[in-house]
């Protein structure tokens, strides 16, 4: 099996190289058969890599410890699901998964465009296969997952116990779907530059791809946060760790891109900027893959120190140079068709949105990259703490919420005083009222108060839009409220899907504000029968337990939780001691979103820290995380909203072209 996989990788590399060459030659010689052959090569690469991945999975399932990669990431007792997930548990396997996903995307693009975009396609195929060639080269010569051991190992090391968690099966693939998905709009952008087709074609045809990549990056980031929260046991979900930052940066620039392309579609502005944004996003996504996979930063995420560094750096510089040179070459043909007339206009709101996203991305980039460069160039190790990130990103984020409320409602070109009053008087009053209520309830944290006010403002703008639209449908079509609301949303899915995503983001902001501004923690060293309290909760240490299985010893404690005197839940935080690795792991117990009944107000997060066998004392740590559940709930709303936004326009089948044009203008008008 391993030989088969090895052979497939080699053949995939040859096919990819052929595909790049034939696409290029086919374009130069205007030879459509050669172009076609390049496209067929893309399908072949996907098939070959599919077989290679399957054969590696088979090797994992059959405990084939003659392969170094299998021996490092699996063992005989590992559950089957983690044997499969071990495919991306290490460096070479995850690079193979990366290029496999890319090749599947390339194959889909090729099949979708058999008859469309024929001028762009050689560039698209060539770019996608060019990227594949790099990764396949790395797999072949630098980090091969099918590398045999000199002598087969009797037993494998096994996947790190911290990784043996259901999120291991879904978090990395989600991020990869996103990282890799950026390659498709990037390839279309490069193809547009190469072919000189600089209208909106490359943007409109990749709209769903962009949203797809953006969606999976975002969902991957959220899953990572949730995983850290429930697994790592420090009470938080985000630590500005380099690997977290690496996934956030392309998400930020991609979000900016998704917004600013609307301005290009509607007004013919920001053409160069959009190209720059997608180039930046792709570079950041390669950078993210590199950081995660190379161990360049010592962080809890890094896998291993490796020889990938110089190769990735070369690849990265090549991409930047090629893209930027192409862009400069085409600059004379990228004239803007309009310009901003007033600071108070939707155009300028979109511009501020972009400036803010870029400023946030730059802050994250600087804080992530400076320590690497400092060590690499000066040999001085430095670190930067979360407080610095928060100091900058909180105010920029608050400004962003404000723009989220203003952007979708303010008039195009130049907003009149009347327009401003009509659209914003209500939401401003509502925001101020929410602020006053929070103040009366005792919120004195300035940034948190401001955040709640702005979140309320945004929600009010969206509610007002929905209400006005529904009311006019009720009046004109004589529909009831719910029918009116549904048909309103379905008639302009892109616009209202976008609003739903905004609602989800506001919920996430509320959760972040509550859990970071008002977190409490307490440590207690108590004996059975004693209790301790945090906020409104009181926890009675009722019982202890211990158990063993073939891998680990488990120590647990039972806490009976009361809130304001009422019993609400029983929590059982645990400590695992894995015999093989001698490593303890903390299993937290949470009274929160997934308790019954669900608790949306404030998570109670408990940890069993330690026990003292002689004295019989147990040490517990508890965190109170107000509003944190709203982050995960907001994630679900974002998922829903994105789905609404990408729904096909099945409601209006005739005059398809026309309706999609109306759609485009609808979302921004």
């Amino acid at each position, binding site marked *: 099996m391993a030989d088969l996989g090895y052979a497939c990788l080699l053949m995939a590399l040859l096919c990819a190289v052929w595909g790049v060459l034939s696409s290029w030659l086919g374009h130069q010689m205007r030879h459509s058969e050669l172009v076609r052959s390049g496209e067929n090569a893309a399908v072949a690469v996907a098939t070959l890599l599919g077989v290679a991945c399957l054969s590696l999975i088979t090797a994992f399932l059959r405990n084939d410890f003659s392969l170094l990669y299998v021996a*490092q990431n699996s063992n005989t007792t590992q559950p089957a699901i983690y044997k499969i997930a071990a495919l991306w*548990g290490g460096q070479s396997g995850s690079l193979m998964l990366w290029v496999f996903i890319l090749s599947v995307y390339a194959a889909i693009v090729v099949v979708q465009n058999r008859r469309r975009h024929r001028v762009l396609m050689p560039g698209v195929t060539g770019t996608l296969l060019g990227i594949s060639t790099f990764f396949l080269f790395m797999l072949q010569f630098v980090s091969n997952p099918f590398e045999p051991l000199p002598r087969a190992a009797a037993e494998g*090391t096994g996947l*790190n116990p*911290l*990784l043996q968690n259901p999120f291991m099966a879904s978090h990395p693939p989600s991020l990869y779907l996103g990282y890799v998905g950026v390659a498709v709009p990037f390839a279309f952008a490069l193809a547009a530059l190469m072919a000189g087709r600089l209208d909106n074609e490359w943007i409109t045809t990749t709209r769903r791809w962009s949203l797809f990549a953006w969606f999976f990056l975002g969902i991957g980031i959220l899953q990572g946060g949730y*995983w*850290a929260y429930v697994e790592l*046991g*420090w009470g938080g979900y985000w630590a500005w760790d380099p*690997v977290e930052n690496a996934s956030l940066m392309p998400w930020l620039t991609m979000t900016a891109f998704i917004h600013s392309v609307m301005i290009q579609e509607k007004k013919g502005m920001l053409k160069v900027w959009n190209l720059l944004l997608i180039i930046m996003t792709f570079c950041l996504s390669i950078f993210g893959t590199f950081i995660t996979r190379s*161990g*360049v*930063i*010592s962080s*809890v*995420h*890094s*896998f*291993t*120190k490796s020889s990938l560094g110089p190769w990735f750096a070369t690849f990265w510089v090549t991409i930047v140079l090629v893209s930027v040179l192409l862009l400069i070459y085409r600059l004379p043909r990228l004239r*803007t068709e309009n*310009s*901003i*007339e007033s600071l108070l206009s939707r155009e300028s709101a979109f*511009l501020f949105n972009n*400036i803010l996203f*870029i*400023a946030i991305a*730059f*802050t994250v980039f*600087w*804080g992530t990259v*400076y320590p690497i460069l400092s*060590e690499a160039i000066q040999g*001085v*190790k*430095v*670190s*930067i*703490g979360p407080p*610095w990130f928060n*100091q*900058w990103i909180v105010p920029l984020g608050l400004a962003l919420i404000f723009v989220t409320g203003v952007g979708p409602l303010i008039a195009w070109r130049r907003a009149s005083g009347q327009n401003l009053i009509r659209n914003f008087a209500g939401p401003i009053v509502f925001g101020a009222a929410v602020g006053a209520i929070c103040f009366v309830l005792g919120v004195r944290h300035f940034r948190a108060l401001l955040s709640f006010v702005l979140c309320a403002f945004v929600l009010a703008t969206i509610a007002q839009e929905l209400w006005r639209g529904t009311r006019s449908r009720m009046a004109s079509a004589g529909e009831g409220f719910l029918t009116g609301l549904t048909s309103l949303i379905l008639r302009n899915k892109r616009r209202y899907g976008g609003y739903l995503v905004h609602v989800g983001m506001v919920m996430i902001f509320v959760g972040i504000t509550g859990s970071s501004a008002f977190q409490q923690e307490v*440590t207690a*060293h108590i004996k059975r029968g004693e209790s301790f309290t945090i906020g409104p909760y009181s926890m009675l240490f009722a019982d202890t337990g211990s158990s063993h299985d073939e891998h680990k010893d488990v120590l647990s404690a039972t806490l009976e939780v009361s809130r304001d005197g009422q019993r609400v839940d029983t929590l059982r935080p645990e400590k695992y001691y894995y015999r093989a*690795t*001698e*490593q*303890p*792991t*903390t299993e937290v117990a949470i009274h929160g979103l997934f308790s019954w009944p669900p608790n949306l107000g404030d998570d109670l997060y408990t940890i069993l*820290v*330690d*026990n*003292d066998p002689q004295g019989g*004392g*147990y*040490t517990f*740590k508890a965190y109170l995380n107000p509003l944190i559940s709203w982050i995960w709930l907001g994630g679900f709303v974002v998922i829903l909203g994105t789905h609404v936004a990408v729904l096909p326009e099945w409601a209006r089948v005739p005059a398809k072209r026309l309706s999609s044009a109306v759609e485009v203008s609808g979302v921004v008008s």
Partner: protein
Amino acid sequence: MRRQRQKLILGGIIILSGLGALIVYSFNQSLVYDHSVAEFMGNPGLQRSNCRIYGKVAAASVVREPGGIGVRFTVTDGTHSVPVIYAREVPDTFKEEGDVVVEGMLNAEGVFAAHHLLAKCPSKYEKEAQEAEGSYGSAGAGAI
């Protein structure tokens, strides 16, 4: 229209570069330097300010504070060592002879009072690679 555009680009550049300068300036203010145990011992200047020390947890040096939370231990590079007290609960990956980074400063008793502790858990294969490289800095940590 052209002037408008130039004004716009200029304005954008001024805003972004001003912001960028502020960000970079404050960054340099809150940067913390990492030092080896030897550097820390050899430089009295470092001993008076907040800094980070990296090294290994000395064998048989970990003493749990009575009451369960907090530890005392010694961080060492083989030749030099510094006594450390850390008053919070230690992460699961903290163990004797494991890699550790502590942030804090020397207290009046000459003990390094850490307010931040990072522990790393090189797995078996990575450990070999790391010893072969002989470097602490880029050693792979436990994976996620």
